[in-house]
């Protein structure tokens, strides 16, 4: 199967995602330039981390107008699995493919550290290989990862089980003490109603090898492989 990783000007984890998909998980992978309009036969699309367009206006605000985003949207509409990591998550929010928005971390500063993240839902293409409530150790590295949605939207995404990841303690307890950025309901990642588009602030691709401090993140990409093996890819 094939992972296509979109490269925006200013993406900086594009190669990391490509490397994790191709060298660690061992699948085909391609880097797709944002000015292209063809996803090169992708089975899975990844919008990677970084600072697209410098994040100068708002994170993800300019990237959502890139030519490739039309193809990404069409792919998502067909049910294709799309994963937005960090800046990629922010792009998905700005593009309206996921609900809500990001604001500055509550403690304002950029925060870079390994944090425990609890898997809330396993019926998405990016968590299918995880156990329910499994705690993954994943790095975060962002200045604007403070997830916000208006109250009615938040209630709805909770009701529809769209919260896929939450920040937690190492043993899986969710509380403000383990919320690194002030996100509402400790949200670290969500999916759309159809559950094929997932965005998260932590970086699973950077935690896919034990040598790098944690291999837990490998499960996220491996989930997509499992999903495909079980015939769950519906977009083709």
């Amino acid at each position, binding site marked *: 199967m094939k992972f296509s990783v979109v490269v925006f*000007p*200013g993406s900086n984890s594009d190669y990391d995602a490509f490397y994790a998909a191709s060298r660690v998980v061992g699948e085909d992978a391609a880097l797709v330039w944002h000015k292209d309009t063809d996803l090169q036969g992708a089975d899975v699309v990844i919008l990677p981390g970084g*600072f697209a367009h*410098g994040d100068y206006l708002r994170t993800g605000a300019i990237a959502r107008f890139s030519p490739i985003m039309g193809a990404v949207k069409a792919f998502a509409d067909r049910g294709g699995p799309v994963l937005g990591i960090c800046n990629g998550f922010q792009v998905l929010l700005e593009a309206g493919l996921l609900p809500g928005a990001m604001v500055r971390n509550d403690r304002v*500063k950029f925060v*870079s550290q390994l944090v425990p993240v609890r898997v809330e839902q396993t019926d998405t293409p990016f968590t299918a290989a995880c156990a329910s409530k499994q705690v993954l150790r994943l790095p975060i*590295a962002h200045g604007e990862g403070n997830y916000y949605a208006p109250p009615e939207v938040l209630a709805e995404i909770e009701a529809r089980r769209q919260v896929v990841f939450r920040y937690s303690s190492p043993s899986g307890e969710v509380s403000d003490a383990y919320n690194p950025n002030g996100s509402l309901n400790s949200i670290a990642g969500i999916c759309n109603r159809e559950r094929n588009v997932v965005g998260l602030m932590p970086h699973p691709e*950077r935690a896919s090898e034990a040598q790098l401090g944690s291999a837990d993140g490998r499960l996220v990409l491996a989930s997509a492989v499992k999903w495909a093996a079980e015939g769950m890819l519906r977009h083709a």
Partner: protein
Amino acid sequence: MTVIDSQVLERHGLKPDEYERILQLMGREPNLLELGMFSVMWSEHCSYKSSRVHLKTLPTTGPRVVQGPGENAGAVDIGDGLCAVFKIESHNHPSFIEPYQGAATGVGGIIRDIFTMGARPIALLNALRFGSLDTALARRIFEGVVAGVGGYGNSIGIPTVGGEIVFDEMYAGNPLVNVLCLGISRIDGIVKGAARGAGNPVFYVGARTGRDGIHGATMASAEFDDKSAEKRPAVQVGDPFMEKLLMEACLEVMKTGAVLGIQDMGAAGLSCATSEMGSRGGCGMTIDVMHVPQRETGMTPYEIMLSESQERMLLVVQKGREREVEQVFEKWDLHAVQVGEVIDGSRLKIHERGVLVAEVPNRALTDEAPVYRRPMHEPSWQKDVRQLSLAELGPAPPAQAAFDRLVAAPTIASKRWAYRQYDHSVGTNTIAQPGMSAAVVRVKGTTRGLALSVDGNGRFCYLDPHRGAMLAVAEAARNVACAGGEPIGGTNNLNFGNPERPEIMWQLGEAVRGIGDACRALGIPITGGNVSLYNETEGRAIFPTPVLGVVGLLDDASKTATRTFKRDAAAVVLLGDNLGELGGSEYLAAMHGKVCGPPPALDLKREAALQKLIVALVREGTVESAHDCSEGGLAIALAECTFDSGGIGVTADLALVGDANATLFGESASRIVVSTPEDRVAAVMAAAKSAGVPAAVIGKTGGDRIRLTVNGGAAVNSSVTDAEQAWATAIERKMSGRAPL
């Protein structure tokens, strides 16, 4: 036309005899533009006129050296056809004036030096010095510098993997911001900053030229005084997004083979890039400033040639392949424009709309710059400050009190407040993160890894610049060795006061001599570096502060060690001798407010043996943790081994040397604390013996306390949790209530 009188010369920072030299080299009077170009190129910052004779004495060769000093960065062979390209650079003065932007543009500058060589940057480190965090000014500068370092590196996606931070009142008015960048390139992919081949076009790419930083280079060479406020617009705003585009585009364009030479425009901007590329390549260059993309209207040739706008590059392209190069830049939304061409001869010709406005032999700006053998004189106070009588200091504080104070002293405490603001995981190469003794990054596509450390101890250098500099080399190399890295190359940043003062010049000379001695003994070639002088405020100089960056090679990146204990009931072994030396220690500064005494002795032969030993022990997996002893001595080193270990305590008994506090907190060199399972103790001791390194089992891991005794007498008994909490949060507590902006 402006007459060049003494006032004009003074404004350009040129001395009358330097002007005489310009007249000679030019064979006529220069015009104002030419004078401006001389002024920036002959500034201390660009010409190294005070330090050059000393730098020449450094060892710069070795079997692994691919590129020594003289290019944008140095390079060493790391096997598999690859080389590590690295250099350190300072941005001290700008960071004082505008901490965020000063630090950010400093990071931007050194990154350009690395990718200019054709190497992909994979790691950043920084060495920072600030005044005491008890002052609002130091907190503001610290806050801004850390945010700026992070802001630039995070955005461009190069992980900041390590560094060091020291707080001392001596840096209150002159913070130091030294940044090291390391990249990886194929050896045959290195591109140099030389122009070649008459008729080849010269391209400009990157940010447009504005009026910023005009005289920035000369600013870095002038002491601060009350008038420095007027020079403030010299600070620039960094644009990491532009730099990211430039980096990707340049690395891509260099792969085409159509680029013959490339150089970034940093200090002295276009003047520097054009003249250096010409003189390195033994040819001339002609450009027309009309073609230079400009951000503001009405810029004069003077302003264009002297501007230090960030994020700009100059390229010499093979004639006929212009389109190929332009296309790569266009892909990245960058517009490369031809501004001139390489010409025969050795002259740099600047035109404005076809009219010749300056013509200078380019070597006059570079190689022919003045070189000074400035007078050196040992300061009259030097011998006095090296005296230390413990008796005269009064009653010694209880060891526990000293331990509690030291563990939370900002210089010793965890720097997590800072490095949590740095993305250290981007790039998926970081094996040992900030907070460990040395950073370790893997080299993708190979089994190899690189260990990196930057170190310097201004106090030691103040007390004895020769020995202090040797200690800095030894410490950086030892840190790298503790991670299993064989030191293979070094870079250095010399941060000193005003070289026109013989005492400062003496410090500089002695320090460079020390770096040379230590590097020769430890087999570490110096492949580059940077010199920052005039670090003074109102006549008061900083501690002489050479900062050493050392790169170590791991053949197998998985065979590394960190400082933290790994299990209960392991033996704790001290490699090296505890000599109980308190001179220049953090203990004396924190408990007695004194900076005095002789810095620790250093036996370079023994240091070399110790480093070889630890590299072997780590690679064989004979030891499970390894930690260098530095600030705070053995007591702090042992405590640090328990921190981040998940609460594994230690019990150790130390043999008395001097008094108890000297035993615990003395900062003797050439010592490493290792832990090893009981059944491997004999192997460690045997290896130490055959290496000629003293070794002693001093205790055992386990429990949840740090229990240290001296000759069996109680000295320190703290819970790991409490000590770790104090250590981890000390800086946060100093910074709380402070607003980042």
